[in-house]
């Protein structure tokens, strides 16, 4: 029973706790993801802005060249070199510079490679540049075996027949430098891809340039996209953002979720709180279960003791009836013995002396003494039955006790035993049988006197128990009553006195009287500390038990 109570209490109290913390964690994960997304989006905007402004500046430089230089000047190798080195002093990322005529032949070239005279008429970028004004193309290796991208602009001639295209190529490394300026706490990887998912910058997750990226990069979207994917057993969340006027999309990737210090702290606090509460619940459950069990036991015990008291009362009543019946039956033969012995004595008195008359006389006296003992037993037994008839009067309990004390005062004085009384003024007059109560108190006080030694103390107290009952407590400083005796103390014929000294009926008669008067009598004792009899009496007569 104990285990199941604890189990039920634990389930009842812990399940809401765990449910709540589960919900909290779920919510926490959701919030964490939103937070991570927010950070990614923000950093994507920064990356996009950085890239676009970088490219814008390059374009600006080239536009400046187109605006300030005539076609002739641009086709002049010397002037072109001067222009390039001026530009390169502003932006180190410039690798080389070329001017291509309308037929696609590179007329001027400044740079580390030998590319002068190459015809670009078939190149995509050249075709596009002849259509639009400006263009950006990306190359992985091209002629020069290093990754780069080119920016082209067209300088239109007045007749639109001798247009030239200026072309600057820029090292991809500079783009990677721009990307690396983005916060590393917000994302784990940042790279550029084209619409065919091909890497244009190196990626921590997907590796080198030209590798394919296994993420959905939304090739037709013109706005930032947010998505999640699982790659290589890792949960990735990422953003994809197209970069204006370029073939690139910048991708920012976060592995797992963003772990902020606050979240870690909150999570720790939740775990700690749940643990603490679980421990509290556990302890409380144990304590409460123990108390419950204790209560159960207590009520069981009180039920049991009530049952035992009822059984005891029944037992005493039936023993009482039996004893009275036996006494009736014994009285008749006892009377015969008595009369016969009496007659023998009479006859001896009326006849003269004979041999051993004294001895006969002694024997007859022995018989008659024994008869007297029997008689005192049977008479008390019958008294037990006779005392069942009660007559009620309004009486003052203290005067009854004082009467009883006056009977035994002399004996107490002789034995130097002090009898103390404490009569509470709150005790009302009660309706009861004066004579019967005298018998009750006389029996108990006599027992108390028997129990105490010289200079001992017997204390008699009266108390108002409640509106319906009063208590009379008789306490002695005697040797106390062992538990195995207390158990039987109210049973008829139970005596601890030596044979012939007590009938063992005093307390059982007392018990019977108190019950008949509608009261209770209990005894408490501790060895060496004396005994205490408590007699509870009703103030008004009630149904006798």
């Amino acid at each position, binding site marked *: 029973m104990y285990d199941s109570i604890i189990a039920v209490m634990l389930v009842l109290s812990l399940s809401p706790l765990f449910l709540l913390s589960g919900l909290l964690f779920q919510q926490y994960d959701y919030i964490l993801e939103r937070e991570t997304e927010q950070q990614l989006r923000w950093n994507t905007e920064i990356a996009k802005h950085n890239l676009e402004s970088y490219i814008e500046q390059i374009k600006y430089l080239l536009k400046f060249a187109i605006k300030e230089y005539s076609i002739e000047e641009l086709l002049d190798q010397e002037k072109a070199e001067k222009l390039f080195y001026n530009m390169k002093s502003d932006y180190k990322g410039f690798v080389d510079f070329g001017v291509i005529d309308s037929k696609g032949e590179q007329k001027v070239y400044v740079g580390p490679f030998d590319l002068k005279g190459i015809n670009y008429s078939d190149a995509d970028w050249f075709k596009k540049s002849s259509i639009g004004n400006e263009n950006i193309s990306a190359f992985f290796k091209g002629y020069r075996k290093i990754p780069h991208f080119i920016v082209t602009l067209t300088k239109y001639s007045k007749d639109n027949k001798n247009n030239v295209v200026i072309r600057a190529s820029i090292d991809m490394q500079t783009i990677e430098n721009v990307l690396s300026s983005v916060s590393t706490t917000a994302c784990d990887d940042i790279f550029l891809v084209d619409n065919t998912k091909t890497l244009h910058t190196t990626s921590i997750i997907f590796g080198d340039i030209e590798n394919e990226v296994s993420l959905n990069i939304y090739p037709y979207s013109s706005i930032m996209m947010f998505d999640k994917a699982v790659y290589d057993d890792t949960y990735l969340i990422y953003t994809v953002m197209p970069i204006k006027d370029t073939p690139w999309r910048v991708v920012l990737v976060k592995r797992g979720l963003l772990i902020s210090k606050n979240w870690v702290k909150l999570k720790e606090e939740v775990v700690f709180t749940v643990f603490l509460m679980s421990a509290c619940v556990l302890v409380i459950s144990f304590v409460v279960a123990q108390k419950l069990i204790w209560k159960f036991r207590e009520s069981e015990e009180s039920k049991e003791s009530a049952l035992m008291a009822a059984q005891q009362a029944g037992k005493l009543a039936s023993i009482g009836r039996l004893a009275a019946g036996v006494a009736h039956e014994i009285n008749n033969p006892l009377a015969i013995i008595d*009369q016969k012995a009496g007659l023998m004595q*009479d006859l001896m008195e009326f006849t003269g002396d004979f041999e051993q008359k004294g001895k006969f006389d002694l024997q007859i006296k022995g018989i008659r003494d024994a008869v007297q003992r029997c008689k005192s037993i049977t008479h008390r037994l019958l008294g037990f039955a006779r005392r069942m008839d009660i007559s009620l009067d309004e009486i003052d309990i203290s005067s009854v006790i004082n009467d009883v004390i006056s009977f035994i005062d002399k004996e107490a004085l002789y034995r130097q035993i002090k009898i103390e009384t404490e009569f509470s003024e709150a005790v009302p007059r009660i309706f009861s049988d004066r004579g019967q109560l005298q018998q009750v108190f006389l029996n108990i006080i006599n027992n108390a006197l028997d129990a105490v030694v010289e200079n001992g103390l017997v204390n008699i107290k009266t108390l108002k128990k409640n509106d319906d009952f009063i208590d009379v407590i008789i306490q002695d400083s005697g040797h106390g009553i062992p538990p195995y005796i207390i158990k039987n103390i109210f049973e008829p014929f139970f005596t601890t006195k030596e044979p012939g000294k007590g009938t063992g009926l005093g307390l059982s008669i007392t018990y019977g009287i108190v019950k008949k008067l509608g009261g209770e009598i209990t005894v408490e004792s501790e060895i060496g500390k004396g005994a205490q009899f408590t007699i509870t009496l009703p103030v008004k007569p009630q149904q006798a038990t």
Partner: protein
Amino acid sequence: MFNYKILIVDDEKDFALTLSERLSLRNFDCIIATCASDALSLIRSHHPDLAILDLRLEDMSGKELISEIQNFDPNIKVIFLTGHTSEEERKECLQKGAVDYLLKPIELRKLVKIINDALEVVPHH
């Protein structure tokens, strides 16, 4: 000198005999009966001064017997001497006019005193 006549009624014959012998030693004339019918015929024939009755007899209770005795002669004193007792019976018997209600066994000295008291109140006619 004349002796008072006492009727002892008890279903225990041995008790009645012994008691009668002892009372005879104390100058009472005793007759005994062990049942109510014998007792009534003895009363009519011997007219005792006093009757000592047991409460329970074979053919009649002591309470009925006392009524019969008083019907015959209300001056015959009646003392109950019984092994059975209860407060109600005691009250009832005393109301019916018994001199006393005594519990067996009783010391003869006491019984004789009660008998003497009872008989001296109304002198024998």
